[in-house]
């Protein structure tokens, strides 16, 4: 993905919108949420058995006759897991799969830039799922979007090996039957941070009247005849918005972020308008 000009430009322009105090990770450049071994003093607290004896403030003990322990901020390098939905639905229009590739590449490059060890996990039927390191992200360029399993199915059967306390970024259209609350809970479980990026095609986000069509679900191959008229479009949008509201609500409850991007908008506009707006990215 480093060959993609938009991705390179975005990687130079933005950085991940992480807190200054990530939840956990190897000792690194970012401050962790908890106490750690960095030189930056955070606070005192009473000694409890098991605390590092080196952090006991003996001077304070002398003054107050209480064993106090100096707590320092933890400095970490965040573990970043980027789950990319490579099902057929993500390839219903070429722009969707391109956007998914670009986002996955961008997030990996940004995470790698701060010393993290990003892993891109394409969601396929392969077991175990393949994990692409930063040095392998170029494989995303040719990655086939032909999977039939949905994210919900993979999460239900435990096929996705998620590392605890990692930054978790999920790129999907979420246009598969699922319960948003359950899905978000599964994804947010043990994650230090969860970002969910919904990639939709322009027509999916805003359908136009087409008349009679035989709709074919490109994952389940189910077919149905339908008149795509204002009435049916209104019903569709109502269901889509219900789905998006459900995901957003569930994400708020899990302290996660949910954002919908339009594939045809292009990566740069998406970063500027949507991802920055959601706090997932910020200008470097």
């Amino acid at each position, binding site marked *: 993905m480093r060959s993609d000009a938009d991705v390179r430009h975005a990687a130079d322009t933005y950085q991940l919108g992480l807190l200054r105090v990530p939840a956990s990770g190897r000792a690194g450049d970012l401050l962790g949420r908890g106490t750690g071994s960095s030189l930056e003093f955070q606070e005192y607290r009473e000694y409890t058995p098991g605390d590092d004896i080196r952090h006991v403030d003996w001077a304070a003990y002398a003054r107050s006759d209480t064993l106090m322990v100096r707590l320092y901020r933890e400095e970490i390098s965040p573990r970043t897991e980027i789950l990319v939905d490579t099902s057929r639905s993500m390839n219903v229009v070429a722009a969707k799969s391109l956007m998914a590739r670009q986002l996955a590449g961008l997030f990996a490059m940004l995470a790698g830039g701060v010393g993290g060890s990003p892993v891109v996990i394409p969601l396929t039927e392969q077991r175990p799922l393949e994990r692409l390191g930063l040095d392998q992200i170029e494989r995303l360029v040719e990655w086939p979007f032909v999977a039939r399993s949905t994210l919900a199915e993979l999460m239900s059967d435990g096929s996705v090996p998620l590392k605890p306390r990692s930054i978790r970024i999920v790129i999907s259209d979420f246009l598969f*039957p699922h319960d948003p609350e359950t899905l978000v809970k599964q994804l947010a479980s043990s994650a230090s941070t969860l970002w969910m990026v919904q990639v939709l095609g322009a027509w999916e986000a805003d359908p136009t009247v087409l008349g009679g069509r035989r709709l074919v*679900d490109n994952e389940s191959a189910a077919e149905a*005849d339908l008149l795509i008229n204002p009435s049916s479009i209104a019903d569709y949008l109502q269901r889509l918005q219900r789905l998006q509201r459900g995901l957003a609500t569930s994400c708020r409850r899990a302290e996660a972020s949910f954002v919908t991007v339009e594939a045809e908008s292009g990566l740069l506009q998406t970063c500027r308008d949507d991802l920055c707006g959601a706090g997932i990215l910020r200008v470097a």
Partner: protein
Amino acid sequence: MSFANPWGLMALAALPTIAAIHLFHRHYPRFEVSGLHLWGVAQMTHTPGRRRERLPITATLILELLAALVLALALARPQVDAVNRSVHLVVVLDGSASMSAQRLTSAGDLKTFRELAIDELDSRVRGLPPGSVVTLVESGRRPALLFGPQGHTAEAIGSLERWSPQSVGHDALPAWNLADQLAGETGQLLYLTDTLPDVGQFNLPGRMEVVSVGEPQPNLAITAAGWMIGEAADSGQGGAGRVHLRLVNLGGGPATATLLATTRDGQQDRTVLERQLELAAGEVLPFEAEVPEAIGQLDVRLTSDRDALELDSHVRLIEPVPRLVRVAVTLPQESVGRQQVGRALLALPGWTPSGAADADLVIGDASAVAAQAESQQWRLGIGPVADSPAVDLSDRSAYVLEKRHPLLEGVVLGGVIWGGVQELKFDFTPLITSGTRSLLVQRLDSPATQFVLNIDLARSNLTDTPDWPILLSNLIEQCRDSRPGLRRVNYRVTEDVRFRLDEQSAEGDELLRLEGGDRPRQVARGRLVEISGLVRPAFYTVHDDDRQLARFAVNFQDIDESTLVGLVAGERPAVVDADAAGFEVDSPYTWLILLAIVMVIGLALGDWQLLRPGLAPPP
């Protein structure tokens, strides 16, 4: 509103068909989507069985339904305000030859009664309400449909352009009955003729109106015509023939007429005979004239200003060809039988002496008959039959004759003494018997036609009675009839024509071709060819491929049809009016069809309403 073609409403069945096609056989373009469930149609995916769906009302569907509706109405031809006023007029046209007569007694343009009838029909048809239909039937020996049934009024008169009434006298009742059937219960009946039929005498349908356009007319007619070959020709020596005509003045006053007989001479007509004749009123004039031999045919016309009907004043005649029977007498010289046979033959025409090998008829000893049998030859064997006891019958003997056999036509055997009767020892069919004795028999043990006269002419007086030449004459005529060829060549219309073919021509299954009259027709091939139902005066020829087998003439000769003085003009209204409800085309079915279609459409719409989203079960 009514429909001229209510069966066209069947096209309305296309409406539910189109709806069903849209309901069950939609072929929308495929369109891939990511989340089919978001479209609310997940339950409509291809699962086993079919769910009932609401009919999608699309512009295509509406346009197709409108097109089908318009097409159905166009086919049904709706006619506003035409119900109860349309008429089915069934007209019987008198097809008799008298309808072709001219109205000589009128001033101005001479018109035939046929033309007057067409004028009357034209005025009737023009007065019919819109949407009416017409059926035309021609009376004749067989009623014929000239137009329709239920044809457009605009085409009715045009269909009579080639109508030519030429029938001999016939009963019009079959045509009336046919018209009555065609009219149904509501049609109107009209009989156009040249004289008013007697209601009491004829079984005229009560609702039939009769219009006669006839008027009494003078007429001259040739009521009989024949061509006889001369005596010399009859004996095979050639000679002039004689034409016999019977001329009749059927008018009320004297008439001067010209009789002209012509024959074809190459490409031109040559006058053979021309006479000026005076015929008194009602006079029947037998006319006979000699005509040259070998002229082939004659065209005889009688013309006069007092002749209203041309058809019966014109005859065509074909010159008869002598059909001589070759007779061989093989009886012993100086025998009584030979003398008596020879004496009778001298008085009979139409035969010629011949050798036994070439003869058509051999008259010889009864004992030699069977041995010399030839399948094509006729033989008469005269007794004594064998050396056996013989008995004589008196002149008071009771003779039993097979009267149906043509050989015995005119034979009575009154006062005949039959001598030398012997016992016959072969299979036979008796023709004359007396008690148990068979006197004249036809042998059955030979393929040839053989008769045996069980008699000793020296001991009998049969040869002295008129029965003897009559018997021999019948024998010669029967033998002549068995030879190939026409018995006669000149016939009158409706007369049956019979002739024999030779063995070679009689074989095969292909039909013969009869040419002449209105149109060629086919005739069954056989040893005996029979042609009947010839109603058009003309020369006729019978062909086997390119070979002409026979040629004969048919002439119109019917004095009843030629008598025009009894024609009466007038009108006779129908005794019973047609059904006041008027004419309705297929009315019992029209509304049934409409009702059925409305029910189908109603059910379809009801079904559509029942399946609307508000009432549909939750997905």
